[in-house]
């Protein structure tokens, strides 16, 4: 029996600036708590990938790498495309923590008329959602198109980031996009691969191997960095390398292979592919939040 509890989204937001790596831990914990809360309220959705990539999002959005104005999102800005659209709970939680929209809106995830659709829908106009995604393999091509628009035509100097899953790399069109990124020398393009080796049916290497991944990305013309996706030092230096590549116009796109654990931060979800596509129960949410530093009182038993 799983007892509901009142869910409160902490009103705190974070600014976007260069930080010491250790400062990201607090932000990532906040993002993870918000993910758990929005998922338990939604009653459906994806837990594993969003929790596993929270550290990447913390660094990308709060470390000065993505440049944006949370008060007026659609002004000149860098672009982020969540190619793995099903991971949107982490994107929504991240955007809410920038102040782009009120945090209590996270409680509407997957609900009727919500701007927080089950997969990102551009039609809902949520600040920070640049495009609809959800059919795997398409977001990366959209991001390539955005990078082309600036690199080859407008020259405003904006950066384009995309995050794909690793199971997603089984979609052939991902490699069409990769080919185009290096063909057009898009050094303003950063491809982040969330490599947790988990997908719905099991381990990626069992379902259909995508490896050797680093060799593949290199062969497709990328400057490749492999990092521990939970290590802020490594994530910062990877993004620094991309920024340098971009500023020096090195002529190569950057790929960051982030080795992550699905469900990171919640012990009973960690590295378990069963958590790809389901939300926590209320009891599991209580335990998860406790592990993430927020104590929810035990239900009173009579």
């Amino acid at each position, binding site marked *: 029996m799983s007892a509901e509890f009142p869910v409160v989204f902490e009103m705190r937001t974070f600014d976007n600036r260069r930080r010491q790596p250790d400062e990201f831990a607090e932000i990532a914990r906040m993002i993870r708590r918000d993910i758990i809360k929005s998922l338990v309220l939604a009653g459906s959705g994806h837990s594993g990938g969003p929790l596993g990539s929270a550290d990447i999002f913390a660094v990308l959005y709060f470390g000065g790498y993505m440049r944006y104005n949370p008060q007026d999102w659609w002004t000149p800005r860098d672009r982020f*495309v969540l190619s793995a659209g099903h991971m949107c709970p982490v994107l929504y939680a991240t955007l809410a923590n920038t102040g782009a929209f009120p945090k209590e809106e996270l409680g509407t995830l997957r609900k009727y008329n919500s701007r927080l659709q089950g997969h990102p*829908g*551009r*039609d809902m106009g949520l600040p920070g959602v*640049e*495009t*609809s*995604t*959800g*059919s795997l*393999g*398409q977001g990366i*091509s*959209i*991001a*390539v*198109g*955005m*990078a*082309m*628009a*600036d690199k*080859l*035509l*407008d020259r405003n100097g904006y950066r384009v980031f995309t995050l794909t899953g690793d199971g997603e790399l089984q979609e*052939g*069109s991902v490699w*069409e*996009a990769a*080919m*185009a990124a290096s*063909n*057009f020398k898009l050094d303003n393009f950063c491809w982040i691969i969330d490599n947790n080796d988990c997908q719905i049916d099991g381990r990626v290497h069992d379902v259909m191997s995508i490896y050797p991944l680093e060799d593949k990305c290199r062969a497709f013309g990328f400057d490749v960095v492999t990092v521990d996706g939970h290590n802020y030092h490594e994530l910062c230096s990877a993004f620094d390398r991309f920024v340098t590549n971009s500023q020096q116009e090195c002529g190569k796109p950057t790929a960051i292979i982030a080795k992550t654990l699905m469900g990171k931060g919640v012990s009973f979800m960690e590295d378990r592919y069963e958590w790809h596509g389901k939300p926590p129960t209320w009891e599991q949410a209580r335990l998860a939040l406790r592990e993430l530093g927020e104590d929810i009182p035990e239900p009173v038993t009579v």
Partner: protein
Amino acid sequence: MSIPFQLRGSKPTRQGFGEGLVVLGERYDNVVVLGGDITGSVMTSLFKERFPDRFFSIGVAEQNATTIAAGLALSGKIPFFASYGAFCALRNADQLRISVCYNEVNVKIGGGHAGISVGPDGATHQVLEEIAYLRTLPHMTLLVPCDYLEAKKATIAMGEMVGPAYIRFGRAAIPFFTSDDTPFQIGKAQVFRDGTDVALIACGAMVWEALLAADKLSQRGIQARVINVSTIKPFDVETVVDAARECGAIVTAEEHQVHAGLGGAVAEVVAKNYPVPIEFVGVKDSFGGSGEPEELMEKFGLTWKEIYAAALVAIERRDRGFISYRMVKDVPRYDDVHANAHSAL
């Protein structure tokens, strides 16, 4: 009042598309074109030569080209991507559905080599199913011009409207009969011939065949109205329903499967508003094959003769009511009906 026309020669619709792109390139700095390795045959090569800085070769990768176009559109460009319809309407169907239409971005697709008149390349390259798919996509605008000049006008118009749009054009030279004065407006069908005995509703290359059929029908005293549905979506309900009310019998004609294309669109609207007998001329639930365009159009029943025969049947059904159980793809043979209208079935 019907719109005047005059046969002025023969040209392929793809040429109108290629020339239309150049006009757009001159007018708008943010028009860009993506190539899919067949730029000569879909005539995006004209734009490439004129505006090399705004042409990007994506290679044989239609899924990627379609989604890159979405990314360009999200960055303020007006991207056109053209290939053969088989590959830029169906191979990339999911990309069109999600990244273009659900996203509601300003992406324009040129689908060449449409229909059986592709000729020797055979069935794989003769797309006969894409109207059916594209007209079900929310936000999509779907244009099927009837000749070279209309293709050029339609290309310019789709570049100047905002939102996803697709234009269908062909490889073979076909009669060219509209002029600079012929009105063209997205969403508006044109009546090229007045009549109240039967309505011949066609698109693409079949419009000219419908005009020929109307001539032959008039020789036996039947006055056919000929309607060019140059925009399949949004559909001109008024012109088609008026034709149903005033003629009471309809024939649709298209270089596409008889199922779910123009004929399907007409049937939906007529069934909803003013049901009358409809006969469907098109490819009868089969794949194409190699041959010269004229041979194929004859073999697959895409000439004025089938429209003529279908018109007699439609009139007979209007006048007699139910006659027999028939499939949508059952089209009478010209030789069987032209001697005696009342032996049509």
